[in-house]
């Protein structure tokens, strides 16, 4: 599974960071950083929730 963030869409609402802080982090510069772009299958449910809950629909998953 590969996480793809469309940074043109991302507005750093940080919902994903709340759901999966080990994968997504919004830093003090207000930008989102993906800490782990290829998490394992055990993280799929959480990552799917991030995709669902992103207000900008900026996150997608390949594979």
């Amino acid at each position, binding site marked *: 599974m590969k996480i793809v963030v469309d940074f043109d869409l991302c507005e750093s609402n940080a919902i994903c960071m709340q759901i999966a802080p080990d994968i997504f982090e919004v830093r*003090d510069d207000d930008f989102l950083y993906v800490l782990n772009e290829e998490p394992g299958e055990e993280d799929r449910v959480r990552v799917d929730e991030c995709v*669902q*809950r992103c207000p900008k629909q900026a996150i997608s998953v390949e594979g």
Partner: protein
Amino acid sequence: MTRRSVTIVGASLAGLRAAEALRRQDFDGPITLIGDELHAPYDRPPLSKQFLAGDWGEDRLALTRPDKLDDLDLDLRLGVRAASFDLVSRRLGIVNLDDGAGDRGGEELVVDGLLIATGARCRTLRGSEGLDGVFVLRSLDDSLAIRAAFGAGPVRVVVVGAGFIGAEVAATARTQGLEVTMIESLPQPLSRVLGDAMGAVCAELHREHGVDLRTGMGVEAVEGEGRVERVRLSDGSVIEADVVVVGIGVVPNTEWLEGSGLRIDNGVVCDATCLAAPGVTAAGDVARWPNQRFGEVMRVEHWDNAVAQGAHAARRLLVGDGEAEPFVPVPWFWSDQYDRKIQMAGRIGPDDEMHIATGSLAERRFAAIYGRAGRLVGVLGFNRPRQVMRYRMLIESGATFEDAIAAEF
């Protein structure tokens, strides 16, 4: 529990996310999704921002991709309005709306599981309904109409109501260089939600961007011959106007449920698990339920709640009473105005203790946290998304206000 089929009334955010949640739960029975607009499910937040500004087209509003919608294998009925429901017979009356080719009549469906997500509609200003140039903003068509009006030249815009929708419309209009007057009956914008001090920060933001903001002011009349020409205020002053956008709140769409046997009281009344009656749940703007985390009966009109409650209400239809879980979110919303991102999580009351955890009001970049009876109950951020989410997590964990003040993010 075996559920044969599910009918979802309302094909916007809560309804669509509910349908997706049912399939994620491996529900493979028939799902009917009924929506009273002709558009495929679309996202509303951009309607007062990027879409209204003309920066985005309709293609960017879709809530899901066509192939993903197909994968859900729904009986999708667009341009169809629910007209009645009877809990005992489980008969749902639906009306095919006029698609330009005339009224196509109605029919009755007998439903098994029912998920109510009919949302809310805008309040209107009494006496202004027949005038051209007066708008509310809820739907894609509303936004298109306002966009066209804004594009008609150097129009003078009056925004009635400085809540989130009004404030975003004012910001978009100013960014386009239009002359904007915003009328607010409260002493400060949003002061009922954010308190006077934070309301004053919002007021200053708009005034700095050239909005003529009049607070503590009512609208006496919207006047004109056929189309709006002026707005008369409670202090006797008159503002010339070409376009009026009214953003004075919404009312839940529950009229179709009158006589259904369901309890209606400012929304569909649900239990703590989002169940309104056996096999009937509700989600989104239309649902009112006791949120046990806050000990408060809520009806939440935020985007994030529609997503989470849609999924929760869907799962609720698939489980028995013994396995049902209460819906206990920490409400959260955002509003983008000019270059500021305003976010709030939790519940803020006028008597709560407030502490500026980081930043300052003067630079309009801060996170303020709110405490009540020793607990952290809310956080408000201006351009502080990281901190807002951290404090939201603390609220979820039941942190004390003291611990929240001591925390560093």
